[in-house]
């Protein structure tokens, strides 16, 4: 067992999968000699060479579109979009092509690609280096969407994503790259897609989160514990396919549900969880399904006063828990 930062775990996962499977390639902007702007691919170019670690032109649609074609012809591409904010030029390739390839060909063709993209705010990245993009993609049948929150999960889920036969979007919260550390086993292991984790057991309120918010939710649970509120925290880890059972089992036990997400509140991914809980656990609820989420402005503003205003933090989540617990 070794301690790794979030980004070290991702880098190890990439390297080990590339060693294991010669059909894997990495492609994206600056992923080669530079090793990526966050150094997620550092060292891969030296080990695997320019044929398998490809610095592309600044062409996000090409990064995804060529990955689709390469996957059809026997490779297993791992594409990097430098910031999730810049994934939109590839939206058509992801939604119209990658997501539908299997369905539209009636299973004649598949699309085993992984698209990694750093997302999230709190890093002075402003409007175009801070966004949460997951809701655009979780809406789309045919895509899988993963948001890990620990080094262990990042490595294990990344392995599963690369080995998956369908397109997987793998969103990595960039604020966690170097600030989050954790134990990672030495041997090969995977974390299956589609399984949530109960990261703290509790009895009175269920808090559901992912990414950086999974950490903040735990911190908030500690705070309200001092007020005598027992919180169960679920890190859903895979947004699509969603592990409904773990969520519903918990809410049926606690009777209260708070969904936490960093993205804009309106139409965000957490709204879907709220709807599922309302539909399927209504009889067990002892209060409204609530959401703690980002404000509805078009992006995270740059100035630190404004950015702090935008970002959820453990105290705001704790306040929401207290409000819900009071029902």
């Amino acid at each position, binding site marked *: 067992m070794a301690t790794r930062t979030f980004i070290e775990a991702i880098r190890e996962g990439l390297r080990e999968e590339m060693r294991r499977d010669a059909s894997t390639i990495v492609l994206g902007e600056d992923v080669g000699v530079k090793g990526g702007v966050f150094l997620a691919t550092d060292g891969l170019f030296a080990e695997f060479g320019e044929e398998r670690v490809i610095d592309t032109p600044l062409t996000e649609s090409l990064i995804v579109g060529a990955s689709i074609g390469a996957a059809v012809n026997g490779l297993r591409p791992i594409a990097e979009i430098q910031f999730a904010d810049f994934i939109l030029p590839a939206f*058509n390739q992801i939604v119209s092509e990658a997501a539908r390839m*299997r369905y539209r060909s009636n299973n004649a063709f598949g699309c085993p690609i992984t698209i990694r993209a750093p997302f999230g705010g709190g890093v002075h990245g402003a409007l175009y280096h801070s966004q949460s993009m997951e809701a655009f993609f979780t809406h789309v049948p045919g895509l899988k969407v993963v948001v890990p929150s620990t080094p262990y999960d990042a490595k294990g889920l990344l392995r599963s994503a690369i080995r998956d036969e369908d397109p997987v979007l793998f969103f990595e919260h960039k604020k966690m790259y170097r600030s989050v550390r954790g134990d990672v086993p030495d041997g090969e292991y995977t974390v299956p897609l589609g399984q949530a984790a109960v990261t703290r057991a509790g009895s009175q309120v269920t808090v559901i989160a992912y990414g950086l918010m999974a950490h903040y939710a735990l911190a908030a649970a500690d705070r309200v514990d001092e007020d005598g509120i027992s919180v169960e925290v679920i890190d859903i880890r895979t947004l699509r396919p969603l592990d409904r059972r773990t969520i519903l089992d918990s809410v049926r036990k606690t009777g209260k549900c708070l969904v936490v997400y960093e993205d804009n509140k309106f139409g965000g991914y957490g709204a879907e969880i709220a709807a599922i809980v309302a539909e399927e656990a209504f009889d067990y609820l002892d209060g409204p399904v609530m959401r703690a989420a980002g404000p509805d402005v078009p992006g995270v503003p740059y100035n630190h006063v404004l950015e702090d205003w935008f970002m959820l933090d453990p105290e705001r989540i704790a306040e929401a828990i207290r409000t819900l617990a009071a029902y």
Partner: protein
Amino acid sequence: MTTTTTSETGGPAGSLARSLGLTDEDLVAMYRRLALARAIDERMWVLNRAGRVPFVISGQGHEGAQVGIVSNLRPGFDWLVPFYRSVAGVLTFGMSAREIMLAQYAKAPDPSSGGRQMPGHYGSAAHNILSTSSPVATQLLHAVGIGLAARIRRTGQVVVTALGEGASNQGDFHEGLNFAGLHHLPVVTVIENNGWAISVPAAKQAPIVDFAERAAGYGMPGVVVDGADVIGCWRVGHEAVERARRGEGPTLIEAKVTRLTAHSSDDQQTKYRTAEELERERLRDPLPCFREQLLEASVLTPEGVAAIATEIAAEVNDATEWAEQQPDPTVASATWYVYAEDRP
């Protein structure tokens, strides 16, 4: 680097073809594919107008370029990444009349999509024909990726992809050609320029007449060829495919074709094309052009033409009747294959 291939086949087709290494049998086989594609396409319209199928998107006028160029690929080994007018292209690369009609009727055994997509969105895993979507030019990037994989895996495969001149204004076209040129990928891109993006003429689409000029920005040869000159199309296709096979990189071919029908069965083209233009365009129909050429060169006889027509009529009748009798997909199957899953 743009070159124009003018029709040098006005003379005896047989001698030119032989100088290119094509036998009379090759020429007759190409003629047969072209005529079959046309007959199937015409049948689609009949079925549509009779209310039997809801939609047709047509390749009429494009078949000469498709047959000429795609004939240079190795079936079952190379790749074809088609678009929705590639009826003749997919027939040339191995799909059958029955398979085309299965797509037209959207039946369960349809290899393109099992009846999930509109007709014209061809694909066949068995023949290395990639599934087609409706957004235009997206397939360029898939062809580039297939070429990239062929390079990395050292398979020796060549990819041909096709699109209209309208689609060549999309960003994916430019991103794809740029990358293919940069990495000398074995990708042959064919712009089938029929002069119209539904109702918008080429003159309103781009500030150039020859779309092949765009190749210059991407470090590859750009070649213009008359799409009614099937042997000329075969020749430029042969040069491009062999160049790609040798590892020398991609080529952009612009085939000047004609669109003999409306954009689709839901389009009324007389609103934007005059009767005179439509009449004039008939002269650019590759089917009679090729037929006359082969008759003049005595590669075909009038009796041979008639015999082929009879065979094709029987084949199209068989395909139509057979496909119509195939089962529709079941409602239960509508949720299958959103993701990978094992099914018998």
